[in-house]
């Protein structure tokens, strides 16, 4: 896995992320996604593809920082809601760019090449998602490094904005206001 695999996938990855092609493919292959039931409440800006991808990426990026058990689902939902609110504040051209990128990464052939499995992002083995992220981080291709930067950053900012994340990293919270220690 890793670097060489991503390099060998470059043709498809590069072709696939060209904007208009991405939009067209996303529409044509939309049925591949529609088989899965939508999980969460309606989002303002985060597309179903973006939600699937981030649901797979956030646990890998945050690793042992995410809580285990039922708290994990709640933490993930809170993180996804934060990403959604964040994306919804972007200008419409940037919202479209993010949405196109997610749609392309969620195309079954792209997914299969990146993750080495035909499973949806959310069900892909964490090891496959991690191997993809590590190879993208080091890739000699700008596009792959940009994908790493986007996914890693969204996962990080979504999680560390949660008051639930703060205790483990030693941040007591703001000294005043609704999130201050001891505030109701």
């Amino acid at each position, binding site marked *: 896995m890793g670097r060489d695999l991503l390099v060998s996938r470059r043709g498809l990855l590069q072709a696939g992320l060209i904007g208009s092609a991405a939009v067209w493919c996303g529409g044509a292959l939309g049925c591949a996604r529609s088989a899965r039931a939508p999980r969460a409440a309606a989002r303002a800006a985060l597309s179903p593809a973006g939600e699937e991808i981030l649901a797979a990426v956030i646990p*890998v*990026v*945050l*690793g*042992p*920082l995410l809580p285990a058990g039922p708290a994990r689902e709640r933490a993930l939902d809170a993180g996804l809601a*934060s990403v959604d*609110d*964040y994306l*919804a*504040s*972007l*200008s*419409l*051209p*940037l919202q479209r760019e993010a949405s196109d990128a997610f749609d392309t990464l969620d195309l079954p052939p792209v997914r299969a090449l990146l993750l080495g499995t035909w499973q949806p992002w959310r069900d892909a083995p964490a090891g496959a998602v*991690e191997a993809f*992220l*590590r190879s993208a*981080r*080091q890739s000699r291709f*700008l596009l792959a*490094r*940009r994908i*790493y*930067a986007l996914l*890693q*950053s969204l996962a*990080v*900012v*979504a999680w*560390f*904005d949660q*008051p639930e*994340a*703060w205790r*483990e*990293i*030693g*941040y007591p919270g*703001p*000294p*005043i*206001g*609704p*999130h*201050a220690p001891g505030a109701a």
Partner: protein
Amino acid sequence: MSAPEIHDGSAFAGDLSLEGDVVVVGTGAGGATAAEILAGAGLRVLMLEEGAYRDTRRDATLRELPSFTRLYREGAVRPTKDGAIAVVQGRTVGGSTTVNWTSSFRTPRQTLEHWRDAHGLEGLGPDELAPWFEAIERRLHIEPWPDPNPNNALLARGAAALGWSHGAIRRNVHGCRNLGYCGLGCPLGAKQSMDVTAVPAALGRGAALVTRVRAERLVLEGGRVAAVDGAALDERCVRPTGRRARLRAPWVVVAAGAIESPALLMRSGVPDPGGRLGRGTFLQAHNYSMALMPGPVDPFYGAPQSVYVDQFTWRDGVGGRAGFNMEAAGAQPVVTMNQYKGIGTELAEFARRLRHVHTLVSQIRDGFHEESPGGRVELRSDGSAVLDYPLGEYFWDGVRSSYLAMAECQFAAGAERVQPACSDAPAYRSFAEARVGIGALRLRSPSVFLNSTHPLGGCAMGADPRTSVVDAFGRHHHVENLVVLDGSIVPTSLGVNPSLTLYALAARGATALAGRIAGRS
């Protein structure tokens, strides 16, 4: 006293039409300063702002993401065209002054002399600008900060150990309690930002404020600006609601900031025979170095910037290799962790030591060398602006030398480990190791984490109408009743944080404009 006249675009029941003496587009450092002066001269001022008017004293959650989405453009990460640099700009009443870290510097002598020599700008020497600086320093309570937090104290310790030139940063605060949340909008109203100073002052003198309206174009008639047309926006300031605003006045001040001011002029077809509009946009790009210190730093608390290092800003001469100034960059978890580019266990181990993280930033000055021509503003098909800012070897040399200097400083201050904010860089255990590692580090985007809180230029001042857009008073070279007064008018980056320079240039230009208008009536 009557209530202030404020029109919120998201609540428009119909289209809005206003008439006054001067329209001011933008309420940041330039626009609000100009509005206060013009309203004080007895003129009816119409202020136009794309963002909302939020009272950060009541509104602040002190959570980072919701603050970034409400108070900043593009959630504080407006990407350059190739995604290499995230441009950080306020989008709220007060503009970037509402969210800046209060670091206030007079424009360096070297920068002003370069403007005179390379851009023919007269009347902007240190002595000539001194009265303008003094007036703003009094108005905004700009004074040295006596109480550096550990993040800043460590910078001073490292600089002192190495014998580097450094000093105390002055801040525009009044009643500051050293909380450290400047970037989220001051929860105390202590920061003397435009939303609590010049904007309310202008409103008190009869100015009107139109918020959540995006200036789309200047309406040109007979070679003059006849009106400013805008689109009302929804609550998030993102989607047009379909309602419109038209503001008419015989004089128009554009102060929408770097990128947006040139874009507005470009969309409007303002004459640009020299082809200079949007060119020469500078970022003074910021790169970061993260250290783990043996003792707690608690970077999330305390005034974020109170110590500067200027050892390297001009070390190779004004026109030499890329120089940089160095400051502390401690902040809350989202900002701090977003500079850390690892994943999984590696990231978790770092995050669990967040209290010990010490962060430095270098701001690499651009625009003083032929290999540093800055970026260019382009319009997308929908009229929105994007900055094309290519990076070259000259720039990467500045990144490498500043990574080295920051690592040296952090080890001199006692760091256990130092790691450049770059997804290709490992953590180094000594400066000897860092020197070899950083010397060989592959510098490429977006692996090198880069942002800019200092976008400048695009409507450059200059003596020659063929090579510049406005004169030293912000007067447009080709449209008589158009004045530009904001960060877009400076012809290079500054070598320091820009707010005080922009206040002074705007005060000078607005005072001249008030005199010009009085002379006509």
